[in-house]
């Protein structure tokens, strides 16, 4: 039990002023602008958007500045901000098949129509620290352009779905809106679309570790990266006052379709099954880890034995939200003086009982 404390206002104010000064760092260095963070710390911004669950690069960049680069603190700020805004409605489902592609690769199929597009990737870099960036940085040479622009490309897995070798994701069964964990209390078991919402805002590190565990043999699922694509999709919304949908902007996102072996069941012949992951902005690691965990959580649906943590829906979904997790872990540093005092008394009492018990047992043994 937590008993509130009072007092300490002046120390708290002073601590916040010290924090503000430290956040700024030495004033002999230039102040970091939100534009600089948005443009040059893009992947940090994208992670804050994904796990803060609000697409707004400027907001996420500002949160990072305020949080001194602490990702979870920045994510917390974004989550708190969203509670101050009204919701106007839901978009139409974005169509990732019509994405303006920045990157699109398949590790399963070499010759995919539209090609393997590396885009801006760290893959195949040597991971050597580039001291030139510290020396003067400077602007890089302009990227190479081809005469023929990158066309839109169909989903890789659609190509195999025709043969029935890969499962087709089920379409909406009805017109009901998908489950929304920001509106309805979480209940288990959870349907797949609600699970995906929960995983989409889940902590990258947690999902990465769980995804890794499935590869190492805890709920082995034999995954291949069927397709990873990064790019911009149109976001469409139908305002009530218009009665027809309009594009309200674009959103950069990452999508991963993992394909996994499946032995088949009484009703379904052997085929590949799929796990799905997304991230707002560019977040391949997150999208891949999410896809592994999504597939693992389908154990029940696919009649697989549940043996590993990554297959336990309640375990995964109750612990993947880093704002909830940090709230509960970090509250331990707030004053628990009364609480601890009562436990101290309890331990003293128990020790007395144990000492009395030993004395009593000794007496009994002697008899």
């Amino acid at each position, binding site marked *: 039990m937590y008993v509130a404390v009072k007092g300490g206002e002046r120390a708290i104010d002073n601590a916040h002023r010290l924090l503000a000064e430290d956040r700024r760092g030495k004033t002999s260095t230039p102040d970091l602008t939100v534009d600089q963070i948005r443009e040059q710390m893009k992947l940090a911004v994208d992670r804050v958007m994904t796990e803060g669950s609000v697409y707004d690069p400027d907001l996420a960049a500002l949160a990072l500045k305020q949080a001194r680069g602490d990702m979870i603190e920045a994510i917390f700020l974004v989550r708190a901000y969203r509670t101050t805004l*009204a919701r106007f409605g839901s978009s139409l489902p974005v169509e990732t098949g019509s994405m303006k592609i920045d990157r699109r690769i398949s590790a399963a199929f070499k010759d995919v129509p539209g090609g393997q597009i590396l885009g801006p990737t760290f893959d195949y870099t040597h991971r050597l620290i580039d001291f030139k960036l510290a020396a003067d940085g400077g602007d890089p040479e302009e990227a190479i352009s081809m005469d023929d622009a990158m066309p839109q490309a169909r989903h890789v897995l659609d190509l195999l779905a025709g043969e029935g070798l890969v499962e087709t994701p089920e379409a909406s069964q009805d*017109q009901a*809106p998908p489950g929304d964990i920001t509106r309805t209390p979480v209940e288990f078991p959870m349907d797949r679309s609600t699970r995906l919402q929960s995983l989409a805002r889940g902590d990258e590190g947690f999902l990465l570790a769980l995804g890794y565990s499935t590869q190492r043999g805890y709920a082995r699922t034999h995954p291949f990266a069927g397709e990873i694509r990064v790019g911009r999709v149109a976001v469409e919304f139908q305002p009530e006052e218009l009665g027809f949908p309009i594009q309200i*902007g674009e959103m950069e996102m990452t999508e991963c379709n993992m394909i996994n072996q499946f032995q088949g069941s009484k009703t379904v012949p052997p085929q590949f099954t799929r796990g799905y992951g997304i991230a707002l902005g560019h977040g391949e690691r997150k999208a891949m880890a999410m896809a592994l965990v999504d597939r693992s959580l389908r154990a029940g649906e696919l009649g697989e034995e549940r043996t590993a943590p990554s297959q336990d829906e309640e375990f995964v979904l109750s612990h993947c939200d880093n704002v909830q997790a940090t709230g509960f872990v970090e509250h331990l540093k707030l004053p628990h003086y009364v609480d601890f005092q009562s436990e101290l008394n309890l331990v003293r009492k128990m020790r007395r009982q144990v000492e009395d018990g030993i004395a009593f047992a000794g007496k009994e043994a002697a008899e």
Partner: protein
Amino acid sequence: MRNESSSPDTGNNRSWEVPLSDDQRARQGWMGVLSMAPSARLCDLFDALPEKPGFEFLRKPESGLIMTQGRVGGTGGAFNMGEMTVTRCSVKLSDGTVGHAYQAGRDKKKARCCALLDAMLQQPERQREIMNSIIEPLKAEQAARDLARAKKVAATKVDFFTLVRGED
């Protein structure tokens, strides 16, 4: 942290499959172009317009959220991906024409410009002028930006080839 708001979710609304009138399709087109325009550029173009009509706000620029939906597996049923900040605004011109704006982000000045332009574009006497001076240039600039990017992306297309191992 729950966000309580009275506005209902539109959910899986399929009404876009209903054919639109020519006017609706035109309006859908310019509203989309306006939503994608960089704020500074759009406001400059708007300020350069010779005559501005009198208007009143039906809804002052206001920021809120829209829940974005994706599809399971990219092609299946809908799921909620995460929210997006959106700013909306509605105006009524002195002749009674109503204009709306909904666009990603928190830019209130841009939302106001867009709502005014949406109304002015519905006035037959101004439509051609504003299409020519604002919508068409913005559309061309967006296409040019997309093309430049797509050309750079195309340069990263790779042809992997697999090597046959000798021993078998």
